């Protein structure tokens, strides 16, 4: 039986524009503009999109690293935005995050042992010898070892640092892990190691992943269900098979055809999307994709399409399907 672990309902995040003293505009950058989705326990839910689509903001909102402007974030039946400080603090053990940049995600002045130990200290999980053992256990779980305990981040390669970041996130024994582009900054030959590690850990610790990425191949490999975002909106949600075999939204299709294929004999469809990604500070009216969409009609310019179920749990926000 599938159980919902996280539900995001109508979440919005508006950042106020940089303002001058005189021209105090009330304009906002609508980084995330009314998105909803659910994640089932044990699955890997992917969010894909290009820069400015709001995928990272979404990840951070779920952890309340960024406070949403509006909406609900329901974790195991409880809206975490209503939680008082102490309860939220407890809940932090359940949800953790791993980051894109393995260089800035570790404090350069902390040894690896100290970095992971700090998390245990904050939640008063272990002390002294027990703490050390727990840290070494975590390091071993991610393919490192006790010999790395007293080393500093600069002594490690990008892939190893990413392992350390994962160990830190696992220290609290979380159920949900937000993975914000965890392999994007790594060398190709190292990416696969981390992806494999993440899959192993998911089985071992019964983790649920929210996997944020711009790389469709990786998302295809690791995710069960996927949401495609474009300038603050979800344009399509579907399970992996459906999304890749019969993508419904024109943007999803364009995104799929833009993936460089590692086979010189496959003729690419050459369906290259025209134009630039509009800025989220000034998104197009109606359907936000209409400026680049070859199917765009009058209605697309005026009316914003809603996410609708077109069967098989595939949700699409596009006037073509009405």
């Amino acid at each position, binding site marked *: 039986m599938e159980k919902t672990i996280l539900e995001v309902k109508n979440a919005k995040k508006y950042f106020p524009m*940089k303002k*001058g*003293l*005189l*021209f105090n505009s009330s304009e906002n950058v609508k980084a995330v503009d009314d998105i909803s989705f659910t994640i089932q326990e044990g699955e890997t839910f992917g969010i894909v999109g290009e820069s400015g689509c709001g995928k990272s903001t979404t990840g951070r909102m779920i952890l309340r690293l960024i406070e949403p402007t509006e909406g609900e974030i329901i974790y195991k039946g409880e809206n975490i935005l209503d939680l008082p400080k102490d309860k939220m603090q407890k809940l932090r053990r359940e949800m953790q995050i791993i980051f894109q940049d393995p260089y800035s995600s570790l404090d350069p002045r902390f040894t690896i042992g100290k970095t992971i130990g700090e998390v245990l200290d904050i939640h008063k999980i272990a002390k002294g010898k027990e703490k050390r053992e727990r840290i070494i256990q975590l390091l071993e779980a991610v393919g490192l070892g006790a010999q790395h305990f007293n080393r500093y981040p600069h002594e490690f390669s990008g892939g190893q640092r990413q392992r350390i970041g994962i160990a830190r996130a696992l220290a609290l024994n979380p159920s949900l892990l937000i993975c914000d582009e965890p392999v994007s900054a790594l060398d190709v030959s190292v990416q696969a190691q981390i992806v494999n590690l993440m899959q192993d850990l998911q089985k071992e610790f019964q983790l649920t992943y929210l996997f944020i990425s711009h790389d469709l191949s990786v998302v295809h490999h690791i995710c069960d269900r996927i949401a495609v975002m474009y300038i603050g909106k979800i344009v399509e949600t579907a399970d992996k098979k459906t999304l890749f075999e019969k993508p419904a939204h024109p943007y999803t299709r364009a995104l799929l055809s833009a993936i460089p294929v590692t086979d010189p004999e496959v003729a690419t469809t050459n369906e290259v999307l025209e134009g630039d990604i509009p800025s989220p500070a000034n998104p197009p009216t109606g359907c936000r994709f209409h400026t680049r969409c070859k199917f765009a009609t009058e209605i697309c310019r005026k009316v914003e399409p809603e996410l609708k179920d077109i069967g098989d749990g595939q949700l699409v926000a596009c006037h073509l399907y009405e």
Partner: protein
Amino acid sequence: MLRFIINRIFQVIPVLLGITILVFSMLHLIPGDPARTMVGIEASAEQIEQAREELGLNRPLHEQFFSFVGNAIKGDLGESIRTSLPVTEEILNRLPITINIAIGATIFATFFGMLFGIIAAINHNKFGDGLTMVISLLSVSTPSYFLGLLLMLVFSLHLGWLPTIGISTPIHYILPIVTLGAQAMGLIARMTRSGMLDVLRQDYIRTARAKGLPERVVIYIHAFKNALIPVVTVVGLRFGGLLAGTVLVESVFAVPGIGRFMVEAVLIRDYPVVQGTVLVVAVSFVLINLLVDIIYGLLDPRVRYT
């Protein structure tokens, strides 16, 4: 661009207000009774009362403040306690000398500073670099009041080429200008050098070279305009600093400028004069900075279009 300028002007207003408040409250921050402090310990109760009256200390605080601001905007900064002349008049009499020295020093510092900076950057890690950097380091570290005395010792007392004190002829300006400008020159030289070296490492310089541009175009056109941007800021900020620096230099060379006027007023506790001079220097500094910011915006499209 207009929007940028207007925005900057409106940002300056709270600062000007803050300066005014600070200068106004100088009188009230003095420990004890300012009127008594001013007239001296032996003064009679009557004299103190009179001073209090003159300073307007008997009125409510906000009333004092508004009349201070109102008068300041009208150009009335009160009367000097020592001479009983209007402070504004006294300042206006002295201001031209100070401004002449400060402008002269700015030109001197900018010209030689940028010259040295460029020489150093182009001859990076060679003799020219070392020599110009030693000169600028020395000029940054030598206090102006010492440099002034040294220059006076050498050029006036020993060689007899230049006059010692006073400001009666243009030649009198030479030593004060060099003395005042030396430190800023050193700073500008160091800024220009590191700015140039930094810019030369940028990607767009590599692009310029990849285009096959001659090295002089790469350095004097592509690099220089970018390196100039931080230097302009420093020159602007320094001009304000130089305006304040005249305080020391005018004392060294006994120049009757606004700086010396201020110091004398502090020494004899002529508070209206202190307030007036401090206000004038601070406000001019802020306005100059505003000007520099606008020039900066003209130079750097990144500032304009954001």
